[in-house]
């Protein structure tokens, strides 16, 4: 489990939420791959909420914050939209094999239906940050041209890196938004539309599809009829109603993939058990004590941070700490520098010790 706090809670349009979380200083970052999702729960002031899964929209390269986006259409997401800055959110995971691999997937077609855009945002941000030479073609199906989540960001990415293209496909009504000129069309996504807008042979491409189940089924059937092989298509079941996921799962044997659903169920049980445990008062054996303060955090990391801050109060500028202004004179090297668990916060000193000419200057080897 990773603890985060709410940094910002905004709406991308009237029913789409963008939740930005900030890592607590002592917490290690969540390691995930672009396209994966995580389970979150939060504290609403009275009790801990149940846990729900959401796609991560931030890039894995952003180690300090985590973003989720979802459509607000139920009690849980409404409660989520009411979270305030600095509220605590617990994050579990990451989960899922709907993963974009920059080193392997050189030619890709991403097909998003509505809020199914979220895993692709993480992938596009990741590809944009690492400036890979991959050819990425995102087909983003939206109902109308109004209030499209992440529209401006995708257009900006396309301008910055012409190999990361987005085509907005508006299924209902005309396109009046001028910013979509040259980047949009009306109708539905199918093989013909993709082949007209993608360079080269489509048999060289890998297809990622995410959206409502009927949307994915129609597009997958259409692609297969046009000759795209099953192992070129990766789909993400983007609903709480089904856990079915199809296609290849990178780096894993196929039979392991089949066990993924069991893993998710077990994961949920673990999360539930962890929720229960958290509701109980902590026992003395899990709390840091005066005698053993290192049970919870990494003490050496904290000590190093303290040492470095003491030497260099402002980054890049080395100044003398007041404790070192006086030279220490001694006839033997200091030997009492081993850390003591009972006094880890003793202020360090940095004055070297002057060795009188009679003192030994012979170091012995410490293998």
């Amino acid at each position, binding site marked *: 489990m990773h603890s985060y706090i709410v940094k910002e809670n905004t709406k991308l349009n009237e029913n789409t939420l963008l939740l930005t979380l900030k890592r607590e200083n002592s917490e290690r970052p969540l390691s995930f791959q672009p396209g994966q999702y995580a389970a979150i729960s939060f504290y609403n002031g009275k009790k801990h909420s149940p846990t729900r899964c959401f796609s991560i929209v931030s890039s894995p390269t952003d180690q300090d914050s985590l973003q989720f986006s979802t459509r607000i259409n139920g009690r849980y997401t409404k409660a989520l939209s009411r979270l305030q800055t600095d509220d605590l959110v617990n994050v579990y995971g990451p989960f899922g094999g709907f993963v974009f691999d920059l*080193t392997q997937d050189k030619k890709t077609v991403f097909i998003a239906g509505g809020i199914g855009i979220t895993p692709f945002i993480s992938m596009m941000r990741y590809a944009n940050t690492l400036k890979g030479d991959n050819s990425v073609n995102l087909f983003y199906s939206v109902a109308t041209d109004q209030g499209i989540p992440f529209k401006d960001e995708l257009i900006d990415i396309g301008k910055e890196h012409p190999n990361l293209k987005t085509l907005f496909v508006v299924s209902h009504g005309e396109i009046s938004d001028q910013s979509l000129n040259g980047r949009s069309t009306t109708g539905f996504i199918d093989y013909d539309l993709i082949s007209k807008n993608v360079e080269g042979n489509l048999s060289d491409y890998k297809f990622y599809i995410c959206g409502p189940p009927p949307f994915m089924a129609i597009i997958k059937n259409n692609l297969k009829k046009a000759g795209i092989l099953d192992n070129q298509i990766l789909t993400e079941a983007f609903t709480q109603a089904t856990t079915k996921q199809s296609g290849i799962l990178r780096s894993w044997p196929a039979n392991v993939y089949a066990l993924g659903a069991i893993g998710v169920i077990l994961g949920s049980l673990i999360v539930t058990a962890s929720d229960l445990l958290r509701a109980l008062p902590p026992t003395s054996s899990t709390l840091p004590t005066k005698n053993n303060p290192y049970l919870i955090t990494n003490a050496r990391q904290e000590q190093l941070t303290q040492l470095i801050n003491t030497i260099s109060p402002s980054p890049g500028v080395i100044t003398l700490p007041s404790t070192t202004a006086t030279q220490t004179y001694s006839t033997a090297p200091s030997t009492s520098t081993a850390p003591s668990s009972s006094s880890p916060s003793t202020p360090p000193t940095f*004055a070297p010790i002057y060795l009188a000419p009679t003192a030994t*200057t012979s170091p*012995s080897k*410490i293998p």
Partner: protein
Amino acid sequence: MVYSDTKVALGSNCVITVSTIETDVKFINKLFQQLWLKIFQFEQNFSRFLPDSQLTKFNAMAGIKQPISPEFRELLLACRKYAVMTRGIFNPFILPVLENVGYDHSFLPGFEKDRYEKHSRAQLIDLKSLEIFDHEAFIPKNSAIDLGGLGKGFLADKLANFLLGYKDKIMGFWISLGGDIHTYGLEESYKPWKIYIEKDLNDNLAYIESIKDQSLSIATSGVNYRRGIKENKNWHHIIDPRTGLSAKTDLLSATVVGHSTIYCDVLASCLIIEVNKKNFKRKCQEYKITDALIQGHFNNTIQEEYYFKTIGRRIKINKND
């Protein structure tokens, strides 16, 4: 004037000693501060026992091409260089094996229970899988690297280069980073520094004298440190990547002397893995080692073997002063 300071860093005691004609206390303090800052920052960035180090984050994201710092890139390039030179006997991908044999916690007193990301489920793989780009690097999913002694050697050389920038004020120095020593020049009274090679806790095997206006690196690897018992099996921290276990060896320690600490450190560990009494000199020639000594169980007794081509009279065998 000779100034010395000892602090705990990189998992052991580190010592910096400088002989200088400079009498300005502020200058000396500032010099030592900068050296310690470099050491602590290096540990903060490249220790596998710290959850926020660059190395830990890099391992956690295995399977993804990741941005790396220029210093990390230099270290990875050094890993590749020495893996090629030693034909895979040096392999940074041994981290999962290290944790599985028992080296799964810091040995620093007071910090043994520190929590950090473990990789015991990852695989020991060949270094060919490490891809290094201009600003990024890639290791396969289910793999993890540890810089080990190579990192200390790298840092010792960097610190020495930093001090050599003050040649006009410094007559000599020695930097000891837990087993890796880089020495330069002479002490205050124009006598050479004496670097002792430890035989056991109470005795020294030999000492080596430093040279005026020249650098000398000495690194010792041994099986008597960083060791333990796990599931009734003895383990030590020098892993043979060919077997995926602690190296099976007659040697207790191997010391290599040269002009680069990183080179000495890597090859001292390789000697532990590959060498016995018979092939010691041949292996030294193969690796182009000019000066080395080993100590081990030979013919049912603890004996030493020496191979000195260049340092000659500057080494004193079995003498304590």
